[in-house]
Structures are given as structure tokens and as C-alpha cells.
């Protein structure tokens, strides 16, 4: 459950105040499939960062699963992020010196999970995502699609309740993009809340609920029949 009430986010650029988000009221239910669309600078990425606790609202209250997370300190927010949120980025953000398996393992390491359990969970996930034979390859030895699959595996290994994808297909060709999207939609079928930020109307149209942003406001919020 994601609840935004009257959330704004201001940036100071030079001596000018820029309102990236203005008084957003938004509720996303558990297990929803939502796409956020809008032109550059419309505030869609800021919205995603706020949902993922990477950023703090300038005003307003954000409740995640009923808990007010705006008042948490950095350590507590990091903990919530680790346990409840998974990120998928346009540019994958894999650590170049680590193998695919180690990249997937990273959140477990940060959470202090025991080594044996880490190994079995990573192995399972590699199998699920068809990466078993790529486990010991470094990111530069993987194709774009494989890289994004590694990134998705990493985002889901902590079994988060929310998966946030910022232009997940932006750096991929059309076919691979569709494959990755199908993968994400499969995860949503299993109960995860999926939020996809995109430019691409065709991709955005696949989501059940489509949100359009413009100038820091929600322009439209429509459910597909």
C-alpha cells in the first residue's frame, strides 16, 4: 500500500525554486500494475524516487504499508528500502567488477544473510531467469537483455513488495525490451506491486492503471477496462 497525501517536492536550482511535484495525492494498492508517463521534467522520475525512499518529500506525508516513512531517519529508510523496495534502472547499474551471481547476491550481503543461504537463493534465481550459464560472467560479457535480467533478479532477491522500474526498456532493442517487460509483468502476477516509468505510450498502455504527469501534477489517472 502506497499513500501520498499532499506531497510536494521542491528543488533549488541556482536561486530559483523549481517545483518538481505539486501537492500529489495518490494511492497505489498492493499488487497493482501502474505505469507513469509524461514528458521529461514532468516529475515522473521524482515520483518514483519518492516512492522508493531515495528522495524525501519537501512537504506532505508518505505512508508505505500504513507506516509514515517520511519521519524515518536515513538508517531506518535504508532498512525499509532494503526490505520492501526493488529498483530496476534504465542503465542497469550493475557493478562492473562483480560477476552476475555476485551482483544478484549484493542485497543479501548488505542485509547480512548467511553465505550458504545466499548461494542457494542466488542459484535459484539464476535458474528462474535463465541465467544459470551466465553466473560467472561479468556485466561487460553479457548482452543488454541479460544485464537487465540480472538487475531484475537483484531487485527481487529480497522479495520486496514494490518493484520500481525507471525506463526498464530504454536501453534495449524492441524484442529484448518486450521480453524484459513480460518478465516484470510475470512478477506482478505473483503479487508484487509494479510501477513502470516510461516515455513509451505503447509500453505504458500495457499497465492496468495509467498515470500521466505534467508540470509536477497528475494530469490523468485512468484504469484500463
Amino acid at each position, binding site marked *: 500500500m502506497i499513500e501520498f497525501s499532499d506531497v510536494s517536492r521542491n528543488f533549488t536550482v541556482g536561486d530559483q525554486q523549481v517545483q518538481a511535484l505539486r501537492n500529489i495525492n495518490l494511492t497505489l494498492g498492493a499488487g497493482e500494475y501502474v505505469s507513469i508517463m509524461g514528458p521529461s521534467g514532468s516529475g515522473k522520475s521524482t515520483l518514483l524516487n519518492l516512492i522508493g525512499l*531515495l528522495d524525501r518529500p519537501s512537504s506532505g506525508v508518505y505512508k508505505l504499508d500504513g507506516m509514515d516513512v517520511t519521519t524515518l531517519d536515513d*538508517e531506518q529508510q535504508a532498512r525499509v528500502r532494503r526490505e520492501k523496495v526493488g529498483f530496476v534502472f534504465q542503465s542497469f547499474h550493475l557493478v562492473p*567488477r562483480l560477476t552476475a551471481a555476485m551482483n544478484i547476491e549484493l542485497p543479501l550481503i*548488505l542485509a547480512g544473510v548467511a553465505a550458504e543461504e545466499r548461494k542457494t537463493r542466488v542459484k535459484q534465481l539464476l535458474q528462474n531467469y535463465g541465467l544459470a550459464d551466465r553466473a560467472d560472467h561479468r556485466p561487460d560479457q553479457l548482452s543488454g537483455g541479460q544485464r537487465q535480467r540480472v538487475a531484475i533478479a537483484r531487485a527481487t532477491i529480497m522479495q520486496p513488495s514494490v518493484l520500481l522500474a525507471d525506463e526498464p526498456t530504454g536501453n534495449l532493442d524492441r524484442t529484448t525490451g518486450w521480453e524484459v517487460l513480460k518478465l516484470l509483468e510475470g512478477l506482478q502476477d505473483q503479487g508484487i506491486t509494479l510501477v513502470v516509468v516510461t516515455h513509451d505510450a505503447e509500453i505504458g498502455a500495457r499497465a492496468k492503471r495509467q498515470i500521466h504527469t505534467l508540470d509536477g501534477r497528475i494530469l490523468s489517472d485512468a484504469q484500463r477496462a
Partner: protein
Amino acid sequence: MKLTDTLQFASGSLRGSPTRTLLMILAMSIGVAAVVVLTALGEGARRYVVNQFASLGTNLVIVLPGRTETAGIGPGMLLGQVPREISLDDAEAILRSRAVKRIAPLTVGSATLSRDALNREVVVLGSTSELLEVRHMNIGVGKFLPPGDIHESASVCVLGNQMKRELFGNEQAVGAWIRLGDRRFRVIGVLATQGESMGMRTDELVIVPVASAHQLFNTSGLFRILIEAKSRETIEQAKHDAEEIMFQRHSGEKDVTVITQDAVLATFDRILTALTMAVGGIAAISLAVAGVLIMNVMLIAVAQRVREIGLLKALGAPPAQIRQLFFAEAALLSIIGSIAGLVLGYAGSMIIAQIYPSLPVSPPWWAVLAACGTALVTGILFSVWPARRAARLDPVAALAGR
């Protein structure tokens, strides 16, 4: 995050940029090696001096004529009198002290030594049979001076090793006759090679009974009395007794100086230890410089790995964890640098020991500990700032590489 994982991750990122890592380890190790080598040199010098003193004899108390302290001008000095000389009887009287094990009176002079057509000026030492023990000398061939009444002269002499070689070459020396000034002496022994000790080359000496030396130089005074105390504990007692006895025998006048070898040794020891520490301290500055280098490179590393730090934050790493990762890197660098520095330092010490075999070069344990400790502390201390900077990065900006 577990400690082993932290270390593993840190070592992974160090291996990720091998050139940078190697350079930092090099800087650290040079600092540590400098401390090790320089303190090893200082410690070597100290041990060299201590050994020299030890080769002079153990538990030594030395009596020399005259006061070395200034105590105003006595009436005697105005009349041009020299301090009263120390006689052989004075030397014998000191043996009355219970704290004294043995004594060796010393007279020194130079005389012309000749054998057949060979002539040279030599330093002649007049003493007794006790000198061998007191001064820790070793006899090579034949015998040392015979024991007996110290007032009795005898026409026998003992040659230093080099003196024997110069005069006799490979010939047998014991039993041969040589001439010192206008007297003839029979060679009864040759000293083993002793090398130099406290500026006196015993290898070039000729030793004769003290009474014979007095006749040769036409004197009756002694240059020194060497006293060996019974033990380390009785050194002070022996010194006190010697002063007392001389005071009484010289009709209540303090006209001799009694020094203990320990006191001299302790002074040298203090000076050289202080010197070693000073040199070690200067070398430690290079460790501080290495620390600044680590900070510099760490800051660059933070800048280069901004996206990775952003990612770690997005994956739920709290600021403390990110700080720890950078501390772990600094600690690893310092530890590896210290170990490399120790290896380098010990190798350097060994090379110096090869070049100067007489110098007992070995780094003192406290310097080794201090060098490694300083390396570790500076490494971690200088990574505080970069680590904090990394931990405080804004995750959104960091992910975007800003």
C-alpha cells in the same frame, strides 16, 4: 552486513583498480620500511657502543688521577702542582674492598721496539696478569703475564696479534727476544685478534709487567686502575670503597676520579636511544605523507565510484555501512602496506648488515610496532573524510553519476 563480507567487498573494490591500490600500498610500505630501516640503524649504533663497552670488561670501575669536575681553584693549582699520582700501593690497597673481585693497574707509554733490523714506535701497556680477565682479552699463543708481586719487574712481554705478524711474520714468536727502548724482553705470549675496542687497538700493543713499564718509562704513577666488581649489584659499593680508600691514602684529598662503566654506558645508551627515536620519528612523517596520499586517492575513488555508492544506497545500504566499506578499504591498504613495508625494511636492514658487518643492525620491536600502528591509524584516520563524503551522497544524484 557481516565483517567478512565487508572485507571481501572492500578487497574486491581494491582489486578492481590495481594500479591505484599498488601505488597506495607502495607509499605505505615505503613509510613503514623507512621507520624500520632507520630505527634499525640507530639501534645498531646503540648496540655497537654497548658491545664495545662490554668488550672492555664487565662490572668495571675505573680510577683515574685528577678530578675531572671543577671545584674551584685549589691552592695547589696556583702553585703549579699536578694532582698526586696513583701508585701501585694505592692499587693494591683497593683490593681490600669486599666488593672488588680483582684489579688491573695500567701504565701506558710509547717506546721504540726493535727486533734485529726492524724498528718501530709502539704503545706499551704495563699491567698485571689480572688484565687478561678484567679486559676480556684472549690469549692466542703461549701465556699471558705471570701472576706474582706487582712490584716485581720481569723481562717478559706479550704481543698484540698484528704486532707479532709485523715483527715475526709466520715465524714462531714465543721464546724470541725483542728490545723495548734499552731493555730486552722475552716474548711469552701472543694475544688473539681482538679488533678495536674503544679506540685502542689491542692488536698493536705490547704488554709488559707494570713494574717493568715503570722502569722503562722511569715513572711510578699509574694511568688507570681497572677494578672489576664482584657483581653488578656491588659496582656502586666498589666505586664508593675505591673513593674512600684513595681519599684516606691521599691524606684526605679527593684527587682521583672514579667512574663506573655502567654510568658511562647508561649515558651513551640514553643518547643513542633518543637518537633512534628521533630518526624513527622523522621517518614516521613519511607515514603521515602516505596517509595524506591515501586520503587523496580515496577521495578520487569516491568520485569515481559515485554510481556504485548510489546503487548500494538504492539497495538499502545505510550510511554507516558505506562508511565501513571505505574504512575497510583503508585498513586493508594499511595492513598490506605495513606487511610489505616490514618485508622491505627487514630486507634493507639485512643489506646494511651485509655492508657494515660490525654494526649489529636490527630494528627494535617497539619501532616495528609503532610503524605498523602509525600506518594503520593514519590510513583509517585519513579515510574518515572520504568515507563520510561517500556516506552522505544523495542517492538520486549519485545514481545519475553526479
